[in-house]
């Protein structure tokens, strides 16, 4: 396999972007990534998108998006793994370059969630329709069950959950692309309205529109496009049971653990080598469980990390310096690529007020459904 680098990135702001369509968003992000690298065309494109069909009634995104990007004729593949679609699109692009099949490949993600679709029901298609959704469960409900199991098994508290939201909003307040650029207090989080007990509104990532794109090429060609490439050291993808009921320990995310161990093994690195991470905090409890599955925290102890400041900017291991899904926003298909862009900027020293000092190795973790799929990538300053 060839060594692969990311050489440029482009991203729209995240938020309720009523004036922009799905294809507008994609073109804005993709064009920025191409222009920054001064690349006229690419050999292939992978685009992560969870549900264009249900959010805006648009399938067959490949030709539509290639055409509007001015790349009619270029091979383009739409990749779907629910909220992990973006991360899996990056993996697909990585494999195409690493294999030697193509040199210049764009990995993008896009989601247009605010266009009148029934968001609760569309997101619920990432759960098992017959075994779960039929009975009245929602996505916040599934993560609320994970939270309650974590609290019952490990003694995690409501304050632990709220501390994740407080930390990520503090980070997101520094991010010009974030949907919510304001801090929230522990009291505000704990007094916000109940969505699915014990999860409240301020434990939940928002409904967002947005797109993100990164350009990949062989590491040996990276200097043609940038003087500061970021190498993709590893890619790990894994699955678990779709239905939460089938997991022996609902408080542990097996797919995250497996995807992480594959990535650590491939990179020849371990959790102690990571300087900065972007992880899938679709709900506050998710970040807590993910920290444990990535071996950043001992099993059962993930709730302490945000509360003690360990995962805040300036802490031992800053997690979600972008503001995470919670504050930055969560346009589901774009999220996995946006995570990669934050790490790309961190490792290039371009993160401004959010910069993690001397960051050399970064990790992203992107998850689908209630943890049915997870993809982990590890990056190193080139």
């Amino acid at each position: 396999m060839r060594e692969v680098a990311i050489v440029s990135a482009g991203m729209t702001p995240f938020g309720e972007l009523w004036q922009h369509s799905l294809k507008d968003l994609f073109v804005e992000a993709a064009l920025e990534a191409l222009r920054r690298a001064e690349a006229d065309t690419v050999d292939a494109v992978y685009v992560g998108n969870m549900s264009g069909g249900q959010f805006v009634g648009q399938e067959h995104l490949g030709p539509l998006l290639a055409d509007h990007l001015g790349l009619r004729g270029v091979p383009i593949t739409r990749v779907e793994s629910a909220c992990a679609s973006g991360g899996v699109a990056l993996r697909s692009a990585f494999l195409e370059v690493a294999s030697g099949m193509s040199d210049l490949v764009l990995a993008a993600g896009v989601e247009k969630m605010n266009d009148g679709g029934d968001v609760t029901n569309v997101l619920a298609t990432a759960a098992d329709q017959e075994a779960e959704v039929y009975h009245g469960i929602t996505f916040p409900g599934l993560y609320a069950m994970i939270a309650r199991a974590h609290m019952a098994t490990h003694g995690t508290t409501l304050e632990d959950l709220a501390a994740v939201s407080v930390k990520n909003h503090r980070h997101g307040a520094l991010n010009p692309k974030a949907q919510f650029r304001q801090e929230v207090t522990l009291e505000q989080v704990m007094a916000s309205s109940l969505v699915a007990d014990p999860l409240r509104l301020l434990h939940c990532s928002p409904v967002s529109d947005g797109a993100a794109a990164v350009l990949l090429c062989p590491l040996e060609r990276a200097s043609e496009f940038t003087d500061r490439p970021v190498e993709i050291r590893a890619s790990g993808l894994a699955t678990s049971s779709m239905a939460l009921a089938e997991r022996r320990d609902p408080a542990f995310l097996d797919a995250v653990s497996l995807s992480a161990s594959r990535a650590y093994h491939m990179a020849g690195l371990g959790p102690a080598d990571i300087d900065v991470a972007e992880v899938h905090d679709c709900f506050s409890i998710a970040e807590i469980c993910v920290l444990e599955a990535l071996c950043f925290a001992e099993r059962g102890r993930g709730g302490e990390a945000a509360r003690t400041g360990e995962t805040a900017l300036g802490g031992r291991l800053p997690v979600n310096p972008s503001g995470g899904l919670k504050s930055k926003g969560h346009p589901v298909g774009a999220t996995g690529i946006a995570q990669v862009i934050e790490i790309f900027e961190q490792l290039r020293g371009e993160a401004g007020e959010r910069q993690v000092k001397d960051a050399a190795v970064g990790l992203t973790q992107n998850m689908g459904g209630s943890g049915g799929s997870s993809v982990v990538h590890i990056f190193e300053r080139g």
Partner: protein
Amino acid sequence: MPSPRYRREVPARYRLEAGRCAGCGAVVYPARRICPACRGERFEPMTLSRRGTVVTSTVIHVAPAEFQMEAPYAMAVIETPEGGRLMVQVADCDPNDVAPGMEVALEFRRIRKEGKGGILCYGHKAVPARQGPAGRRDA
């Protein structure tokens, strides 16, 4: 949900039909072709008991459109004595009283109304287990 899809699910939803893997003994609900634990393909048909224990739970406050009239309502993953696990609504109690470890009975109930015609869809809901003179009433 189109009616063929609904009918396919009837054995599991109405009768709690499951399978016990002949190779490793895992209980699989609803029945499927390949055992998720050992990849065996031989199963003994069985039905789950109509009782169980709450593994984890939540109270849904923001509900899907078809369930809005019922909110807030409790949902739980329950485990039957055979080891089968299923996602159910927990009814006939204060939803805030539902918590891990709670003993429940499963009852055949209406789950939802679908579409413009309001087609009735059935399945099981859990209710708090009650101790009576003859033991659990669900036995």
